[in-house]
């Protein structure tokens, strides 16, 4: 199983366009690191925060996702999610739990080390808030995934990535707002900032994006309509939440190690790889569903005007096919009652 991140998060890319986004990420990273190298920390952090969302928006336009009507959708997913992120981050980190955050990040008595860490604050910022974060970034894509136009698994995945990366960007800008009030150009701590900005750009964005995508894709599910809050959704939501918790735990705990920021970056990349592998498994199904549905819709006019779904795997059935293209289930062998139910759009499924 591969963990090629670009083709995973951008499943509609071809081999050629896949390469173009790899170059786009490298080019954006050059800008981000160039600013950091020049000591322009504020510029570097801001560029790091927005790079992946910008690349994803260009990708959505490039592949013509959602057939020429992406503006409202993108505005809803990216814009609203970013606003939610900014408001919640200010509220949690700068108002309600500001003292707790100071307690967690100010623990620097020289001879105490990690034993000085506040367990309560760590639990709050590395477990509770990441859980809340994943729930909040999922709101807009969940609303959209309930609509017939975006209820496919691949749509849910794409909406989840867009929401996750925009949440990460807005959260980063709020959490690092202090860099806008210091010296414009600095020579201090640049070695620290290189891993930090790369982590913000690549690690955090991709972890948030993939974690949210997994949850929303599971909500969409296979077949007609969306699956909703099933056990499958809970499992994938928990997987995404664990990834966020692992990421934040790493950030806070590795701070006590030498070269902690560098170790935290490596840790984030490991989490990205694990998430990418999981996402490939989900996408394998999603892409086949989209392809079969595409093929089926091309032949649908001669029939009832609606798609039928396999009673075994819930994949779309190509009209006149004797077998499900995904699982091989014989369509003709399906009992009459079951066949009637699945032909009508799948039993017990929200429409």
């Amino acid at each position, binding site marked *: 199983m591969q963990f090629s991140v670009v083709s995973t998060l951008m499943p509609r890319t071809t081999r050629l366009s896949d390469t173009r986004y790899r170059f786009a990420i490298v080019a954006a990273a050059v800008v981000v690191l160039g600013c950091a190298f020049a000591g322009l920390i504020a510029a570097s952090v801001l*560029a790091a925060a927005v790079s992946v969302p910008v690349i994803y928006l260009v990708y959505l336009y490039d592949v013509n996702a959602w057939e020429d009507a992406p503006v409202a959708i993108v505005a809803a997913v990216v814009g609203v999610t970013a606003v939610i992120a900014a408001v919640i981050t200010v509220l949690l980190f700068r108002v309600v739990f500001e003292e707790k955050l100071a307690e967690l990040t100010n623990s620097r008595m020289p001879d105490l080390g990690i034993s000085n860490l506040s367990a309560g604050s760590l639990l709050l910022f590395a477990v509770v808030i990441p859980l809340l974060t994943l729930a909040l970034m999922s709101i807009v894509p969940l609303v959209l995934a309930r609509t017939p136009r975006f209820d496919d698994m691949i749509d849910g995945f794409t909406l989840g990535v867009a929401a996750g990366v925009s949440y990460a960007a807005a959260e980063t800008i709020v959490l690092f707002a202090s860099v806008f009030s210091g010296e414009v150009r600095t020579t201090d701590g640049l070695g620290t900032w290189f891993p930090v900005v790369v982590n913000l750009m690549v690690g955090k964005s991709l972890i948030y994006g993939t974690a949210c995508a997994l949850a929303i894709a599971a909500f969409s599910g296979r077949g007609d309509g969306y699956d909703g809050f099933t056990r499958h959704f809970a499992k994938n939501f928990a997987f995404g939440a664990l990834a966020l918790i692992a990421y934040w735990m790493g950030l806070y705990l590795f701070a006590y190690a030498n070269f902690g920021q560098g170790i935290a970056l490596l840790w984030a990349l490991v989490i990205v790889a694990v998430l990418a592998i999981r996402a490939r498994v989900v996408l394998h199904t999603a892409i086949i569903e989209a392809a079969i549905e595409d093929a089926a819709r091309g032949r649908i006019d001669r029939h009832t005007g609606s798609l039928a779904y396999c009673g075994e795997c819930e994949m779309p059935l190509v009209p006149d096919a004797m077998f499900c293209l995904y699982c091989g289930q014989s369509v003709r062998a399906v009992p009459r009652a079951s066949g009637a139910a699945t032909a009508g759009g799948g039993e017990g499924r929200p429409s």
Partner: protein
Amino acid sequence: MTAAARNRLTTPVAIGIVVSVVVIVAGLGFIFAMLNEKSLDRFPSPVAAGPIDGAPTGTGVVTGSGTSTATTVGGTTTRGVVTTNRSASTTARGPGTTARAGTGTGAVRTVIVKLGENAVKIVQPTGYASKSSNQGITLTNGTASLYFHLVQRTVGSTAAAAVQADADSTLRSASYSQLQRDATSELKPFGTVTSFAIQSYRGVWTPTGATARSEQGLFIAGAKSSGLTLHVQLYGALGWSDADQTWLAIYKQAFEEFASN
């Protein structure tokens, strides 16, 4: 929706758009930081920060006792210890400030930084938590923290050298960027303190990569002729003009106590 994936953009155009937008955003970040920097020209001077100018006249000496020793030795220094004690409601006031500590009827803790036979009692006002280590003690109220420790330096060493050493060892580039350090200022000694110095700084504290925050702080040291030196580091997201400068009263009281023995 369908899986159609005809690309609208060519590779150069796609990369060009991404790079252009990222560069523009980075430029906005640069401009915003530049505009914001101008509004922060008021660098906190030692006077604005409110250190002691000559002998402090506060009245906040706190009674209390109790010891637990844990002494370590390192280089020219011998570090000492902290004990805590509760006393009845006590106030520590610094002259010319609005600082209050232990107002009302609530109990006020005292903590003791100790080195050998030497000890300094420090008031811990309501709202401050304390945490001790082998080297010293930190009082914090969530936004401001004060770290106290006693050090036995070589006879005749100055407080200015102590302050400089503290600043150099603490303000490491692994944790700080955009640092602005004031020059070390020698202040008028008082009581048994023969040398007294202070240095202020401001920077962006980035301990973990999880967040960053602006921090202002002071390094203060008072040395006796014997070489015994009380070090204080004050740090946090401080507002130098804040009306409630409780931290000012705390370290004034500590130096007052230190200089009285």
